[in-house]
């Protein structure tokens, strides 16, 4: 899906836990997510802290979308 949407000219950020798979399939902008059962939060920390994690990941994704890349890039921060 990532590749097909990009082929249509729309940049994509792939948020995922298993970064190596994302690199293998050819995503260009990658955000490492928390874990496979809960990529955008952490239920162990409660809803409030989970929401903070989610917001920070989404903001990082929006930043990545606006960043020019020449190669596959993992946005760690």
């Amino acid at each position, binding site marked *: 899906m990532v590749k097909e949407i990009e082929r249509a000219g729309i940049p994509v950020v792939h948020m995922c*836990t*298993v*970064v*190596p*798979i994302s690199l*293998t*399939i050819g995503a260009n902008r990658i955000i*490492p997510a*928390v*874990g*496979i*059962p809960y990529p955008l939060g952490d239920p162990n920390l409660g809803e409030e802290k989970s929401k903070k994690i989610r917001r920070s990941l989404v903001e990082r994704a929006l930043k990545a979308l606006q960043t020019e890349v020449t190669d596959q890039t993992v946005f760690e921060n």
Partner: protein
Amino acid sequence: MTIRYCFCYKIEYIDRIEIEKEVVILKLELGKIKISDVQFGDKTEVVKGTLYVNKDEIIKLVLEDDRILSANVELARPGESVRIAPVKDVIEPRVKVSGSGAIFPGTINKVKEVGSGRTHALVGATVITCGRIVGFQEGVIDMSGPAAKYTPFSETNNVCIVIEPVEGLETHDYEAAGRMVGLRVAAYIGEAGRNVEPDEIVTYETKPLQEQVKQYPDLPKIGYIHMLQSQGLLHDTYYYGVDAKVMVPTFMYPTEIMDGAIISGNCVAPCDKVTTFHHLNNPVIEDLYKRHGVDLNFIGVVLTNENVFLADKERSSDMTAKLCEFLGLDGVIITEEGYGNPDTDLMMNCRKVSQKGIKVVLITDEFPGRDGKSQSLADATEEGDALVSCGNGNVIINFPPMEKVIGTLDFIETMIGGYEGSLKPDGSIEAELQIIIASTIANGYNKLSAKGY
């Protein structure tokens, strides 16, 4: 004079321990008692190759677990018009006759190292746990018809335990109850083989590293990396009772697995679920032993896991590669359980072990879609240049109706491999091959493969 005496005595004592070590600790004799039929009887016993089981005693044993509301025992033999579903686990009945520990240590028996002495197995018999579904990844076994050939359990004499949980039992508790029921019944039936003279005795032996290397100094040193499913959410494996997701990679003598050191707690896709039967009868270990001292030196097993966090995957594959390097291996075989994100663990292990200068062969199954045109594995690496395929789990097959169903067909359409419309009104099924237990099992205990031309 006295001092000298003491010194001599000590030496003698140490010698004796070393001799004891060599004879007792390292060798497992597996006595295979061939079972060609299963029947109900007044007593659970083996008579001339027929296994008799006492139904009431088994039900009583199962109901000792207060999470189980009711249970039934049904028998399924090769060639019968029987369909078993949803299958949770399959276990070969075994009993520890001599040597340290007891069968399934750390789960139904105390934690104590196993893998030496003598063990008896009722080969050709199994215990199958089935009944109302736990998750959505339990499978189907047909005892006859075109779908039977895809599972090894159409050729065994199966004691099926159909369980019904108490109302409102939480899913993880239900899984645990089902898992323990299977192990306890298998151990109970295994006892019937304790005093039976086996039809065949196979001896397996792996020595401590330095001695093992010295035994066959000219043969390549080969190891086996056994990846245990440990994703959680009903995808778990236990080694001496420890949940594999919280362990770091470790070394195991190959004979330990034959005494039930590893048991399955998995509701993964049925086709490549490594049941407890498959741990007891791991085909990679079996085949490596066949060639042990012939054209290779089988050094042992590295156990690792398949966790759901990237940091865990990195840590476990780092440690796996480090262990292989430390053992001085020339080559390894790696198997995985499940597919999708565990393919990443498989590839990380492949890459990191290869980078240590060790040759790697992978064994896995494939999911390239129903038309076979998509990427077969979720991940790949350049170092993965030698792979044995155990078949394509996405192929659609047809199952004719069976006269008898053990368990229930109520969940066919929500099981992995099933879909809306899979179950027909006459009881026939159209589904992907992956709905069948062990059809593409990724350690080669099946009959499917793929070849490059």
